């Protein structure tokens, strides 16, 4: 399993908060250019580290509740959830190298 997981407001609790693995959740929207650039980066990380971390995507247009709950005021925003808690918040597009560095505690 190396695909990215599509997360919705309805499935957020079971798919993210109750997930046994850490989840990197990408808050994105189709109209957001920088979000599109993150797509291949996230896909590669999902493929390379599928044993350690789940990569999830949440469309903020279709799932406003979760975006509001976590004060997502700029996209792309990436949140790392560990045992139901936010362990890291990253705002803005970034190259793969930096994202891998930021995720080192979980995939390193």
């Amino acid at each position, binding site marked *: 399993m190396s695909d990215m997981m599509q997360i919705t407001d309805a499935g957020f609790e079971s798919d993210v908060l109750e997930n046994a693995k850490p989840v990197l959740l990408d808050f994105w*929207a189709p*109209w*957001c*250019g*920088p979000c599109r*650039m993150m797509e291949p980066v996230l896909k590669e990380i999902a493929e390379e580290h599928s044993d350690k971390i789940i990569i999830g995507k949440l469309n*903020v*247009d279709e799932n*406003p509740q979760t*975006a509001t709950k976590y*004060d*997502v*005021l*700029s*996209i792309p*925003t990436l949140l790392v959830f560990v045992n139901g808690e936010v362990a890291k918040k990253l*705002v*803005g*597009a*970034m*190259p*793969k*190298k930096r994202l891998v560095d930021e995720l080192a505690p979980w995939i390193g």
Partner: protein
Amino acid sequence: MSLETIDIAIIGGGPAGLTAALYASRARARTIVFEQAIPGGQIVTTDWIENYPGFPKGLSGQELGDLMLAQAEEFGAEIRTFATIERIEPVDLDFKILTSDGDEFLARAVIVATGAVPRKLGVPGEAEYTGRGVSWCATCDGALFKDKVVAVVGGGDAAVEEALFLTKFASLVYVIHRRDELRATKCIQERCFANEKIEVKWSRIVKEITGADGRVTGVDLAATNGEPDEHLPLDGVFLFVGIDPASDLVSGMLDLDEAGYIKTDHDGRTAWPGIYAAGDVTDTELKQVVTAAAKGASAAFEALRYIDERVCSI
């Protein structure tokens, strides 16, 4: 590590850089565009462009950026994204280009099209709450402020256009401007004054962006016309107070004007033979997509001629 040799290194992938790449690659020059983030430059975060000729109804900045990128790639230009250039080192008549990832290239000519970055306000709270209610991109973040109260700081075209865009989402949009009249183009001003969701705060300077629990709560305003200072409760603040040239990379090599823009002649030559510049990073008066594209073409033409003349003189 091997040193890849190319003809033309273009630094920056906005309209100037992508147009230069189009011209250079059509002339069969081996061309790489080094873009530190994503292709398109400032237009990627521009909602709508209606003054680029050939598109009578206008088009989104993202769309125009995608089209320019596709056209440059069509003729063989290579675009490297998230590629930050650390240094340009002259090597005889060539230039060694070093990226932050440690890659090295040897280019026979360089076109600097690094553009400009939004100017910071330099007030408390600005850095702390960036991405947490402070934004430089209404098209990126506007939709996250549905039915909220936001402010745009600035009075130029970008500020007023973004304020108009934000009215699609926000319940109320303040435009905070330090003067008592806007600098924006008249046709944009007319739309601004006709919009019931926009309220202009004239003659006000932002002293501080306030926040609590990791997000913006408002701004403290100082009046420049003798009226009392005030606090404006807000959910978001969008900053459009001008641009600064991204010329740090070449500040030790090229002549810059007082504001930091690269001095060029009308064909894009800089003070250093073999280095050309185009677009918002240069000292041209009008900074538009159409002028950036035009200057990108000129710079590529001159860079190609420089390379050809070097070959013939050997």
